[in-house]
């Protein structure tokens, strides 16, 4: 199982004028793994993720996601991925169910399938009572859980999560990771960025980006051993101190 790659990137680069946000990064992600994508603010994580999702065109290099080229087959990539952006991006002026119905519909699900799946999902999330509430009225933690559930509502091969737990309390964070594990158990590959080093420990493998480049990539256990430290936090500090870019 572990030798099938669902994401392959080779020399992936994005330049904005003279600024190189992502600088020739190369890596592979196995099918079914939880891949942590770490880095300080401004290290180029979001830019890299947006290229993999077909939201941003690479300036150089290539990548395939779910077997499709992100440059030439961006729309095919989009059929097989889910994405949860850093900024909450669901429709505030639609209800919880209407959001599920819209995105389910866009991915070609029938109204009946959507209804059945939505009831089950909202039950699991404990949001059944909020089915017809406007999304704007939900607290942040619930919004995040809803956004995640929506990103895997159409059973994608891979889900990209950009700082999914930003600004959320520890209990909700814990529950959020249970959702991620559950998705992983269903065979969905999880590609996640985070600033929380305890979350990095939950990942099968992590990469750490510094100034647009990937400086380390391995399992959390191997990284701690190689750097001779006890926690992922210390690994991160050791690498992030090398950064020349100031964080935003």
């Amino acid at each position, binding site marked *: 199982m572990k030798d099938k790659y669902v994401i392959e990137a080779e020399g992936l680069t994005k330049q904005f004028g003279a600024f190189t946000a992502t600088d020739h990064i190369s890596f592979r992600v196995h099918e079914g793994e939880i891949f942590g994508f770490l880095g300080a603010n401004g290290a180029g994580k979001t830019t890299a993720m947006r290229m993999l999702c077909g939201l941003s065109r690479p300036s150089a290099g290539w990548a395939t996601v779910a077997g499709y080229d992100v440059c030439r087959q961006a729309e095919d990539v989009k059929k097989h991925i889910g994405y949860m952006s850093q900024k909450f991006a669901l429709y505030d002026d639609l209800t919880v169910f209407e959001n599920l119905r*819209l995105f389910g519909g866009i991915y070609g699900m029938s109204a009946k399938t959507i209804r059945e799946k939505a009831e089950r999902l909202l039950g699991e999330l404990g949001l059944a009572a909020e089915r017809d509430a406007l999304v704007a009225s939900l607290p942040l933690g619930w919004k995040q859980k809803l956004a995640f559930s929506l990103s895997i509502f159409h059973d994608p091969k891979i889900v990209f999560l950009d700082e999914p737990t930003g600004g959320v309390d520890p209990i909700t964070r814990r529950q959020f990771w249970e959702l991620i594990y559950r998705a992983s158990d269903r065979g969905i590959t999880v590609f996640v960025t985070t600033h929380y080093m305890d979350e990095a420990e939950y990942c099968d493998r992590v990469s750490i980006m510094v100034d647009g480049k990937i400086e380390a990539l391995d399992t959390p256990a191997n990284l701690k051993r190689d750097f001779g430290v006890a926690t992922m936090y210390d690994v991160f500090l050791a690498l992030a101190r090398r950064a020349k870019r100031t964080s935003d």
Partner: protein
Amino acid sequence: MKGVLMVIRFLIEKEFKQMMRTRVLPVVFVMLPLFVLFLMPKAATQEVKNLKVCVVDNDHSPLSARLVHKLSASTYFVLTETCPSYREALHCMEAGRADFIVEISPGFERELVAEGGSRVLVSVNGVNGVKAALGSSYLSQILTGYAAELWEEEGLLASRPVLAGLDVCPRYLFNAGLDYTVFMVPGLMAMLLVLVVGFLPALNIVGEKERGTIEQINVTPVGRFDFILSKLVPYWCVGLFILFYAMLLARVFYGLVPAGSVGLLLLFATLFILVVSCLGLIVSNYSDTMQQAALVMFFFLVIFILMSGLLTPVSSMPAWAKAVTYLNPLRYFIEALRMLYLKGSSFLELLPQFVALSLYAVVVWTWAIVSYKKNR
């Protein structure tokens, strides 16, 4: 194909829900046509009325008094002052209390009786050219009318004062009373459509950019054609609602019904709404903030309205301005609407307008789809 139709259905449903949940919009859809159609034809009229006249009667005779009375009896003129001298009358004009000064010479009656003619001095305030020109022609009508009256009644005048032998008797076609509202109302309907279905789409996509929701859409495999179509359909519906509502108001307020086919009206409106809402979406696609989109769209709308023939006839514009109007979709739509409403023109007569609007529609629709970028 079935799958595509399904997707479109979900997208359109979402647009309608969002539109109706923006509290102010349904109110605007109902109130704006009401206000524009009720107030504008009354306020923006080019008929000249209530001109202020100051009379300097140096004769104080029965015949001069009768002339003054005739002036003040006219609906076009209001007698604001009677001054003892021309100098004082001039002061009145400077102070804004008079648009016209009518000075009757001393010996007016005597000259009329003895010589069969006399003179009246008319001074006009030329600041507002339209007012001055129309006013003086009304005034001279009253004066010649008066002279004719005297000639008939008493044989006072030596000759008939009008150019005898050539009596011009115009018959106005399509708008028999030369009623200004009849001319104005179809144009105002077009303006309403531009304001609503031009402005709202301009704020739509860029609004999704500002709120970040466009990201979640762009990361799905939704087609660009489908997405743009789902943005257009609600404006079609709103536009047609406004048009029919405005037609109803025109009937209730002014008893105005289209002389031509309502089906043709619908056809032209459908095309026109497509054109202006696509223009709005294009502006939205290129903008980064709603403020920017609103300003750019405002710029276009002002030009469209000024260069459309809504307020001033295209035929009297200088050549370069006329050339600009050929690029203005509003011009074709207003022409078509007026021809349909007043003349009852057939499709064949409206063919140039139809072809122009169709070409425009193809270009801007394609542009709206192409300028929507799912990745950059």
